[in-house]
């Protein structure tokens, strides 16, 4: 019998049990298998999804559906794997390796106020954190989540976000970069920084910020938050790199010779990321 843990390059199989269209370019896939259910996963980690014969892609886990397996959301970037995944059907088999990488240290954040900043598809890995926090609501202080996308049609998991908006114990803000006349938007219009600029709580040191999105956005978000009294070590970001092995061997995700995103990350504090030259490229 095959023992998957012995050989880190060999995936285990999982079946696609459900596919949901999130928006015109993204779908979410529910995956399940007995081995997958044994997987212990923490928010911020990622898995490597193999489409046999096509390739492998690193994906942040969007949610743990604790008794039905896992959910990953995948945007069709036009690459080999993502475009093929978008043609797959319920019942098809994929391979999984993981969980890989370091998670957000959620236990260290206990008792703190949390700000989630989700830029574009950066929402998906953060979604697992938000759900974790909601499930352990009493461990954490105030909650604020900021969502930003390019235009209103790109919001995903809208029902869920709206259910969070209706919660008393959590505040949600949404913004779009721009909107046309057809799909008008009555909430905030502007870059994410237009919301973070106004985020000036009384005791900034009580807050932890979890941020995910394109690395370039981190620079601007960081600047905006720094102005309001947050230091870089309070801000946690999740970085992205090309990945192949996912286990610190192949050197694809090496950032300027010193840190592996797959092993030392993908979660870093903004301070750590800034210390790595090119870390925020």
């Amino acid at each position, binding site marked *: 019998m095959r023992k998957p843990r012995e050989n880190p390059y060999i995936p285990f199989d999982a079946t696609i049990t459900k596919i949901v269209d999130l928006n015109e370019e993204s779908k979410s896939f529910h995956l399940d298998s007995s081995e997958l259910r044994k997987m212990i996963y923490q928010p911020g980690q990622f898995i490597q999804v193999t489409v046999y*014969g*096509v*390739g492998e892609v690193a994906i942040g886990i969007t949610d743990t559906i604790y008794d039905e397996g896992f959910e990953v959301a995948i945007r069709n970037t036009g690459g*080999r794997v993502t475009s*093929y995944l978008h*043609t797959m059907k319920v019942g098809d088999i994929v391979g999984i390796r993981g969980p890989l990488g370091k998670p957000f240290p959620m236990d260290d954040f206990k008792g703190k106020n949390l700000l989630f900043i989700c830029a574009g598809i950066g929402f998906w890995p953060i979604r697992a954190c938000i759900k974790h926090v909601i499930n352990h609501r009493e461990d954490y202080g105030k909650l604020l989540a900021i969502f930003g996308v390019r235009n209103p049609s790109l919001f995903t998991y809208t029902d869920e976000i709206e259910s969070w908006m209706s919660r008393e114990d959590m505040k949600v803000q949404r913004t779009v970069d721009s909107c046309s006349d057809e799909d008008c938007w009555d909430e905030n219009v502007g870059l994410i920084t237009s919301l973070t600029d106004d985020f000036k709580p009384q005791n900034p040191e009580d807050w932890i910020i979890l941020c995910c999105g394109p690395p370039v956005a981190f620079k601007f978000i960081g600047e905006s938050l720094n102005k309001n009294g947050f230091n870089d070590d309070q801000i946690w970001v999740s970085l992205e790199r090309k990945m192949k092995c996912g286990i610190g061997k192949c050197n694809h995700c090496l950032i300027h010779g010193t840190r592996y995103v797959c092993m030392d990350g993908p979660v870093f504090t903004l301070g750590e990321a800034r210390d790595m030259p090119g870390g925020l490229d």
Partner: protein
Amino acid sequence: MSEKPRVGIFGMTSCYGCQLEIINLEENILRLLDHVNISYWRLALETPSDPKNLDIAIIEGSASNQEEIEELREIRQNSKIVITIGACAALGGVQGMRNLMNNERVMSAAYSNLSGVRATEVKAIHEVIKVDYAVRGCPINKEEFAAAILHLLAGTQPPAWNMPVCNECKIKGNECFFERKKPLPHYQSRVCLGPISEAGCGARCPSNGMPCDGCRGWTEDAHVKQWIKEGLERNQTIEDLAMLVHRYSGGTKDSEIAKE
């Protein structure tokens, strides 16, 4: 099981070597035929049946006269996927060099009377019609061709390594033809194109004792100007080097280096 995909194989101006390499697959052709119906192949089939409604069109050769350009447009209209095979189709091939030379002189050297010759500029296929995938090389590597077809049939793009020939050459542990100022015997005294040429051939020429010829074209990030600078230090003239980097790629738009 739905009907097998219909495949047409077409030859434009070329040496037919890439189609020959398909034949050279020997028994494995039969394995490919398990998956496809060949509906048009002038080299191997009796008067072609019907080159319409093709799923895959495979084109060898470059476009070098008006008739071929028209035929190509027709093929594109009748095919879902167009893949090209060989250097002629992908880059123009050796005949493309005449684009960069004094065309009249070239043509009159071959033909004493030019009145009957109708030849346009040599063009790579993708300069004429949209091409979905190119199998490169002069000639193609038959295994690579078979793999490309199998991948397309499986619904995915064939894997490309996107590396220079030096990768495969060093993997094979070959002696480097490009080492600085190393004297080479006469017959090898050409600057190796390995560092700027696309891999995938298995470093065929360097593994057979000859410097790389660059038949698969440049890599995506080829540092051609730096390469030419290095070439000049190896007692080559700028004209020779310009012809060398375009030996197979005269039929593409990015043949500017030669003109510079």
